């Protein structure tokens, strides 16, 4: 279990819920002699039941509040009873990079789209078949949420009572989930962010997250777009000692005809005796990785520098 050195009065002070916000329920949480978090109050549901749960709520905010009620406002996470999410994880390529790991091989994304977004998806897929394919991350932009869930690189999960950090190695991409009872940023001050604004609560060893304030983007190549109205609810927990599971509901009225429920899995990887480490990721460090979008919409490299001077990736230069 990852132990943080801060077990001080300051930590205890920070554990006090923010005034005016829902206080986690601490009654009956402690099991004598146990260092494991208490059991989750949210019912275990099948994928079909989770899909139906999404349909029963009009928005991600509604679903989040329903789950909070089901969890009786959640539980307080204590330093000596943190769930063990230590280690390095990755997302198995069960269905390539498909947002829904249950996508049949070669199948179309499983989302139920609005007619407008269905049409755009069809056009994108037809383009990809012809090699007309451009990805916004090719110029080193972060993938953004919800696409963040799909990238195939290394991940770490840092759990503390007041915040949990969900880290993707790619472009040093950190999602901070605030679990201290604070609310979202006031609506009038919100603006689109790559990873949005995430608040959550613990329900035993389950972390429930609501994310809003997201930028528009794509779930992956040959996948649908999502709009700036996209919001998500996630429930993260350990499925077994080496697997972290995330039940994910995506709400996006312009794009989705109904909430898109998927279950993501992240597997703990062999750390090669401690030699597998997550390093700083500078996406622009090698000129040879610099690509641009051609006039016909496909992707091409800039000039290579195979003379040993890798140089920095030119910014803003497009042919």
């Amino acid at each position: 279990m990852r132990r943080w050195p801060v077990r001080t009065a300051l930590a205890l002070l920070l554990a006090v819920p923010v005034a005016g916000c829902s206080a986690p329920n601490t009654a009956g949480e402690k099991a004598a002699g146990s260092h494991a978090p208490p059991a989750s109050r949210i019912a275990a549901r099948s994928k079909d039941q989770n899909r139906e749960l999404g349909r029963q709520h009009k928005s991600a905010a509604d679903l989040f509040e329903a789950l909070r009620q089901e969890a009786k406002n959640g539980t307080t996470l204590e330093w000596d009873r943190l769930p063990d999410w230590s280690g390095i994880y990755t997302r198995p390529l069960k269905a390539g990079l498909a947002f829904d790991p249950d996508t049949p091989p070669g199948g179309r994304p499983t989302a139920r789209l609005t007619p407008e977004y269905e049409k755009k998806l069809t056009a994108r897929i037809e383009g990809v078949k012809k090699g007309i394919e451009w990805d916004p991350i090719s110029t080193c932009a972060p993938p953004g949420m919800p696409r963040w869930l799909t990238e195939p690189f290394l991940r770490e999960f840092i759990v503390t009572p007041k915040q949990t950090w969900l880290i993707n190695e790619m472009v040093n991409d950190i999602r901070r989930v605030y679990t201290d009872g604070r609310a979202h940023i006031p609506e009038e001050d919100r603006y689109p962010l790559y990873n949005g604004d995430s608040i959550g609560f613990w329900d035993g060893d389950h972390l429930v997250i609501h994310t809003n304030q997201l930028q528009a983007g794509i779930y992956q190549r040959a996948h649908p777009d999502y709009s700036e109205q996209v919001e998500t609810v996630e429930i993260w927990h350990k499925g077994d000692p080496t697997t972290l599971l995330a039940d994910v509901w995506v709400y996006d009225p312009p794009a989705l005809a109904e909430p898109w429920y998927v279950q993501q899995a992240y597997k703990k990887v062999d750390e090669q005796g401690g030699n597998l480490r997550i390093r700083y990721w500078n996406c622009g460090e090698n000129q040879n990785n610099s690509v641009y979008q051609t006039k016909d919409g496909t992707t091409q490299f800039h000039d290579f520098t195979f003379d040993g001077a890798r140089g920095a990736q030119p910014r803003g230069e497009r042919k």
Partner: protein
Amino acid sequence: MTRVVVTTVVAVLALAAVRVGAHHSSAMFDDKKTVTLDGVVKEFQLTNPHSWLLVDVKGKNGKVVTWGFEAEGPSTLARAGIRPSDLRAGTKLRISGHPMKDGRPAAMWLDAVRLSDGKKFDPRAGFAVQESK
């Protein structure tokens, strides 16, 4: 003790879909062609989001051309068992890849064999989950 379980079946099925395209489309490579070249490592650029293995290849006319073979970043290569010490400058190898459609001397790195000892390198194997239990 760490027990290593290699779950390759799923990964192998999925690799064709991912290739090296995690950062950009692979549309610039011709996946219907494969070039296999003998050469000498000039430089192993372990960089994100992609690493490049630069290989000097001597043509029939005696002229040396530097080819660039693109692979995933350092951590994915590490997961494939490929380390900087494996392919130091001067290492002789036979390397294969999908070449560029436009004829430039670059390719998507598929596999390689170090000629001194026959050790094989599959950069795409890094996406297989070597699970820790």
